[in-house]
Each structure stands twice: as C-alpha cells, then as structure tokens.
C-alpha cells in the first residue's frame, strides 16, 4: 500500500473526524459570537445528545433519522434551558464568574448523567457497518458517508437560516453589538436563546453521529471533543460560521496525519499546539479581522 494510498486514507479519516468537530465548533462560534462566553458545558451537551440518540434507537426503536431529530430537538431545548437558568442572570456579571458558572454547569451535566446512566460505556447498535465503498485499496465506510452527508445538509440549512431569515439577520446584528441591536428593536434575550438552541442541536447531531461512528459513548466523552471544537472555532476565526467548519476539518485532518505518521499519543498535544500558534500569530483566526482595542 504505497504512501499515497495511506495519505488519502488518513485524509478520509481526518475529514470524517473533522466534520464532527465542525458541528460542535459551530455551536461554540455562535454562542461565543453573541455573548462572548467559552461555554465549557457545550462538550457535555454533545454527550447528552449522544445519549438521547442512543435511548431513542435502543429503547424507542426509532430509525437513525428519527433518533437524530429527537436528539436535535430535546438537546436544543436543554441548551436553551441551561442558558435561561445559568447564563441569563449573569448577563451583566464579570466575565470570570460567567466562565466559572460554565465550568460548574459542565460538571453538573457530566455527573448527573453519570448518576442516571452509570459510568459504564454504552454501545450503539451496529449501523451502516456493512455498507462501504472502496477503490484502489482506500475504504470509505457507510458511517463516514452518513457523517459527511448530514454535516453538509446542516451547513446548507444553517447558512440559509443565518443569511436569509429575519432571525438570522437579528442573530448577526446581535453578534456585532447586542446593545445596539436592542435599540433596533431586536429582543436580544430571545435571539441569544435561539442561538443556544441551534448550537446545542448541532452538537446533539454530532453526538449521535459519533455514537454511530465509534459506537460507544460514556458520560465523560464530551470533555476533550468540546475543547478541540473550541480550538477549531478559534482557528477559523471565532464568531464566523464558515470559519468553524474549515477549522474543524483542518483539525480533524491534522489529528489523523499526526496519529498516522507520527504517534497517536501526541494527537491531543498537536491540537493544543495549533491553538496556541493561532492565538499568537493571528488571534482573529483565518477568517477574522483584526480588531484593535479602542483607547
């Protein structure tokens, strides 16, 4: 299997992993864009989405699409609930206390889920396992195609919502400046709540897809992907939707290449190294513009 085949195979692995990071990163970018909060709990919302999908499929007997929809809706509502209870009262609070609250919410979700669904990992039933396309020794299996497909659909849907609809315009306005947006008659609380809903729903989809792709989930699975998704959001330029997608894909590919050609034990270190490089060289990220602090 010459080098080229190996590289292409790694790229495919990387892009599928990258799409999952992208889905979570979108949530991060939208939420950070509007209320400037690193939502540490976002990774755990992804985990809750995975569990809801798991129970929908195993107990509820739903199909994959059914499970995705259920998880998408329920987790979206959960995201809005969390924003309503934990973050809304702190709208005017100093940044550090909102960040600590996010850490608290993250612990809360992790350990309440661990209490209800027990720490032992749950296994997703086999799905799309047999379907696979392979040419010249390179294999793309069913799950990878599912991930790429659903991610693409969601990207289109999201761009439509943000660019074309009234709510989308309000979201963009609020992300520039919430106070001024309010002066223009935008109910910023409603918009922030919707943003949390959409962001959490996307993370839920990512959760279900990971359940199908790696087919085992556990209550602490959200911590690392949550952080990596933030790296992707920063890499692409925080607050910029296409940036989160591109950042996610780049991160997925880099991780696959590092594990493939160097050693997988340095995979997480590579992700953080990218983060620090980007923050130092181009803090506004690939697509962001450099904003000077006004004196």
């Amino acid at each position, binding site marked *: 299997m010459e080098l080229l085949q190996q590289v292409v*195979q790694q790229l495919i*692995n990387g892009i599928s992993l990258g799409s999952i990071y992208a889905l979570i990163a979108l949530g991060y970018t939208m939420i950070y864009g509007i209320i400037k909060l690193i939502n540490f709990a976002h990774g755990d919302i992804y985990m809750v989405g995975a569990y809801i999908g798991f129970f929908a499929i195993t107990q509820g007997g739903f199909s994959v699409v059914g499970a995705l929809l259920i998880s998408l809706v329920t987790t979206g509502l959960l995201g809005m609930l969390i924003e309503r209870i934990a973050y809304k009262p702190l709208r005017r609070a100093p940044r550090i206390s909102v960040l600590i609250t996010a850490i608290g919410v993250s612990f809360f979700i992790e350990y309440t889920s661990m209490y209800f669904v027990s720490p032992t990992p749950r296994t997703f039933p086999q799905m799309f396992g047999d379907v696979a396309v392979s040419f010249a020794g390179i294999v793309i299996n069913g799950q990878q195609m599912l991930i790429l497909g659903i991610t693409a659909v969601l990207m289109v849907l999201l761009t439509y919502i943000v660019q074309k609809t009234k709510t989308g315009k309000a979201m963009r306005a609020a992300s520039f400046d919430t106070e001024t947006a309010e002066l223009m008659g935008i109910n910023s609380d409603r918009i922030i709540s919707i943003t949390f809903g959409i962001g959490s729903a996307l993370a839920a989809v990512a959760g279900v897809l990971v359940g199908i792709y*790696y087919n085992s989930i556990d209550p602490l699975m959200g911590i690392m992907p949550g952080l990596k998704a933030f790296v992707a959001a920063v890499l692409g330029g925080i607050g910029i939707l296409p940036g989160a997608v591109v950042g996610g894909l780049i991160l997925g590919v880099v991780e696959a290449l590092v594990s493939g050609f160097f050693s997988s034990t340095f995979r997480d270190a590579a992700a953080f190294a990218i983060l620090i490089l980007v923050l130092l060289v181009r803090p506004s990220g690939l697509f962001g513009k450099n904003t000077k602090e006004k004196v």
Partner: protein
Amino acid sequence: MFNSKKLRLGLALLGTALISSVLAGCGGQADSNTIKVGANFEMTGNVANYGSATLDGLKLAIDEVNDAGGIDGKKIEIVTADNKSEASEAVNAATKLISDDKVSVIVGPAVTANVIAESQVATDNKIPIIAPDATSPDVTVENGQVKPFVFRSCFIDPQQGTVMAKFAAENLKAKTAVIYVDNSTDYSKSLGKVFKEKFEAAGGKVLAEEAFLAKDQDFKATLTNLKAANADVIFVPAYYEEVGKIVKQARELGITAPILGTDGWDDPKVADIAGADALNNTYFSTHYSDKDESVKPFVEAFKAKYGHMPNVFAALGYDAGKILVDAIKRAGSADPEKIQKALEETKDLKVGTGTITMDKDHNPIKQAVILENKNGDRVMVAKIMPE
C-alpha cells in the same frame, strides 16, 4: 489596603476549625461482632467501570458468607472508599480505611498504578491487601523482594504473555507479528514486552510496535500503518472498551489477520462494540470460561443477584472475596497479621474460577484458558497450567 494582621487571624481561624473538626473525624472503633474489610475501588473517574464491576463480584462473595452465618458468628462488613481512578486518591482512600475505619484487610484497587500507590501505606501499617485484577508483576514483587502485605487473586502478565506468544507461534504457526499496546497502562505495556520476548524466543519476528491511549476513539490512522506491515498476527493486550473499537475499525480497514488479546478482552461488551463477525478469528487468554462446568455456580449466583452476566473483573472480585474469607476462617481472628499469615498459606482453595495455591511471591498458581470468538460465541481452545 493590606497589612499583616490578616494572616494571623486567617491562620487562627484555620487552626481552630481544623482542630475541632478533625477531633470529631476520628472514631469508629472496631466493635466486636463484625470483621471490617476495606474496599478501595475506582467508583468515579475514567476507569470507574472496572472498579465498580470488581466490587460487585466481591460483594457477592461476602454476602454468600454472611448469609451462611458469617465466620464463627461474626459478620463481614465491607467499607467502601472511592479512589476516583487516581493514584494519590488511592493512597488517601487507603489511609482513611486503615486509620479511620480500622479495617483488618483491604481488597482493591483494580488498576495496577493505584495498587502500587496503596501498597506503601498498607505495608507501613501492616494491613494485608488483595489486588483482584492487577496482573503486572511489580505489584507483589519490588526489585527482587516480595512485598509482605501485598497479595493477588489473578495470574500475572508473564504467565499470560507466555501463553499467548506460544499459542501464536505453535498453534497459529505465525512467523511475524505486530504489537499494539495501550500506552497509559502498566498492564498493557508489560504484556507487550513479555509477548515480544517469548515470541522472538520461539523464532517469531515482531515487525512493528505501536501505541494508543485509553479513551481513544479513532484508531484508523495507526491501524492503516499496521495494515501496511501485514503481519501474521496482531497482539493487542488492552481493555475491552478500546479493544472493541480496534477490532471493529481493523476489520473495516480490511485487516483479516488473527488478532490476539489478553484477559482485558473478557467482557460481553466487546461483542456489542465490535460486532460478532468482526470478532471472528480473534483469540484471548483469560482466567476462566463461563462454559466451564466448575464455574457455572458462580455465573448463576451472579446473574441471580445482578441480572446480567459477570465480566472478568466481577469474577476476579469474587475470587478475591473467596480467598479473603478462607484466610479469615483459618486465621480465626480479625487480626491483620494473622490474616496475612493465613493468606500466605492458601493451598488448593476452590474459588469461583478454579483452584488456587498462593506461591512464595504472593501470586496465585492458577490455570489460564484461551478462548476463541466464533460467530458470537466463545469457545475454549486450550486450558494451560503454568509450568
């Protein structure tokens, strides 16, 4: 705005509160009619599932004895402490069990690193400990000397590694092999070392050695490299969570060579994660086969109490409980040093998964079995007593 008064009062507050609460903290003298046994397990943190499974097995063994009237009228009370899957917390939990709860013996923890961390405290306080699942040799022996108060109820890696290396070379006639270990556990790394040594001694050649980390999800990248090496066998001594994914992703990448493993594979979940057909043509060594007649009573008792099949951790927890009870009976008292002596003299004891004799290194002489995963079932291929 600042002055040095604050420190004085800060420390005064700290000192008084500390003294009062701490004096209240110690108590719990051993009342006469129960024998207190400590259970130091991983209840939270990333290996919580191994810890809680072993504890289930231990509880089963202890309940059996208590229901049958305890040991000459005395009931055994299990005092649990959570070491949060972390070495320093294991020492913390052990110290609590020894100094506060005044236990006579401690069972656990499950993972090697935590047992080694705990063994120091146990030896200092002369409290015997039984490690149910840690198979790495340096749990009981440290640079040549056996640790007097550390015992074990499972076989050790050299035995398991040798059995699998011989099996690959002789039964599967493999000439080349690749090894894929979990870099975050002693268990996996020492098995990899032993296998390489014995496999090369038997004339085989190890083409590549790769590593992954516990909690990894995506192994495709490294497996693609291993596929390129196309060795006769792949040896993956790791726990079922990662093993399931590795086998599944290996088959998806078109790797058909037999994949060999060790007792970490022994859990029904491996089949759920990897899928029955991906598991075909894989073999692993473990402590017992649940098809084995002599093990049936334990499996039935476990299913009756917990409603699901036991995994290897539960079985080993049960064995540790059986060994403990037998030792306390022979010691005839709750005195830790008498129990320690009795543990050393354990001979031909019938436990859940077979019969056990404790050797001079405090490791049990037990049989190892090799199972093959075939169309969703596990067939016993060989039963080997250590030579």
